[in-house]
């Protein structure tokens, strides 16, 4: 027999799963868009992305409300409080990831020079796949109490950082090789910089999720501390 407190926590986790799956779906859509090399977003895709983003905003508020109510009504303790507190932190990160997907889509649409975007497309796609994979593993770490996945995610953050650095070097080299100091090229570079910076931030949020998962599993707060 489950208690009312257990029912309340189960209900939070059910909403959380739906929320997390929707964020992963948004990342899938973004990955398809980037790997296609297109800078024009179809009306259908744009509609789906925007509609999902609105759903995510509403669900974030709903889950936060449920968490506050559960704390007030049932005063959860030990692993229960760790779980719902970690859930709260993860939902905040996921909501930010949802926002970043939309920002990246906007930046892709602002690219004026396709040539550079296409030349760097493989690197950007690779970076996004890595970041999405990190988000996925960090979420699995939380839902399955799997510390190994969390550690893998945290360690992988540096891999995405490295790809970002390489990508920027390549972008700078390309823009100087080209010798076309025109406004369009500069704007394209800025748009791409926004894309990669946001992808890097997605990886950063995956790390936050993994840290919250470790807090939920072991009660250790490893934020701002080196990992073995």
């Amino acid at each position: 027999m489950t208690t009312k407190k257990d029912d309340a926590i189960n209900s939070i986790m059910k909403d959380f799963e739906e929320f997390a799956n929707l964020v992963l779906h948004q990342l899938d859509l973004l990955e398809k868009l980037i790997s296609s090399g297109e800078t024009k977003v179809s009306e259908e895709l744009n509609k789906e992305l925007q509609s999902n983003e609105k759903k995510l905003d509403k669900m974030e508020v709903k889950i936060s409300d449920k968490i506050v109510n559960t704390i007030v009504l049932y005063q959860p303790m030990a692993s229960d409080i760790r779980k719902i507190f970690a859930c709260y932190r993860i939902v905040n990160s996921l909501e930010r990831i949802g926002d970043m997907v939309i920002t990246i889509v906007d930046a892709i649409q602002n690219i004026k020079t396709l040539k550079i975007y296409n030349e760097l497309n493989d690197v950007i796609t690779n970076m996004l796949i890595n970041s999405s994979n990190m988000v996925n593993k960090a979420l699995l770490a939380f839902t399955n109490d799997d510390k190994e996945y969390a550690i893998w995610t945290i360690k992988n953050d540096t891999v995405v950082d490295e790809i970002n650095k390489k990508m920027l070097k390549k972008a700078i080299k390309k823009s100087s090789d080209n010798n076309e100091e025109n406004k369009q090229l500069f704007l394209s570079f800025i748009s791409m910089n926004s894309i990669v910076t946001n992808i890097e931030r997605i990886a950063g949020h995956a790390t936050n999720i993994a840290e919250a998962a470790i807090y939920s599993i072991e009660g250790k707060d490893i934020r701002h501390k080196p990992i073995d």
Partner: protein
Amino acid sequence: MSENTINIKDPVLSIRNLSVSYDKGKYAVNNVSADIKRNSVTAIMGPSGCGKSTLLRAINRMHELYENIETKGTLILNGKDIANMPTIKLRRMAGMVFQRPNPFPTMSIYDNVIAGYKLNGIRLKKKERDEIVERSLTDVTLWDEVKDTLYKKGSFLSGGQQQRLCIARALAFNPEVILLDEPTSALDPISTAKIEDLLVKLKENYSILMVTHNMSQAARISDYSMFMYLGELVEYGKTKDMFTNPKDRRTEEYLTGKFG
């Protein structure tokens, strides 16, 4: 000391291998060892029948009133073995407050506070008595409420006021440690909040050991917590650690409502 406990420097009370049995061979408290920190609130939690009240009562040797109860182990209060102390002295050093407020019904508020002195035949000058009454009632934040009705019977006070009067009675002797056995379980939420505030304030001058069924109360006001189960001290540590990250599976299950 075993792994389930913590090291405390200069403890007010040291409990060593304490066992208490009501029936031969059946232990209500089984081989408990722990050090209690000075000027702090320590909560003892656990499901009904886990031995928490029995442990508390062993500290001021209340079990001696019953022939069938056997107590083994050592209790060192402020550096002295309680086994060698006269019980009157021990109970002055370790004042007890019970679940239900129990002021002496025929005595005035004033006499209730100094009842311990009277009942033990200790004579005090009027000035000393007045000072003890005012200090003790002030310590429990009751002075302003009763200073004009000191000679009314204590039983006329509200439940919360009566419980504060009982704490004042324990404080009148300037005890080393105050033992409280579920001191708010018979009180309304407002009176409970007043007692909780009072205990947090009192720890500046006293060491407090409190049995409570109310886990939220332990989380709110205690600095250290003990979790007992089937007479055993399962876990003892800082309250904030125990309530967020208990080490023992049984503590985890109790705190998350799996049993108790």
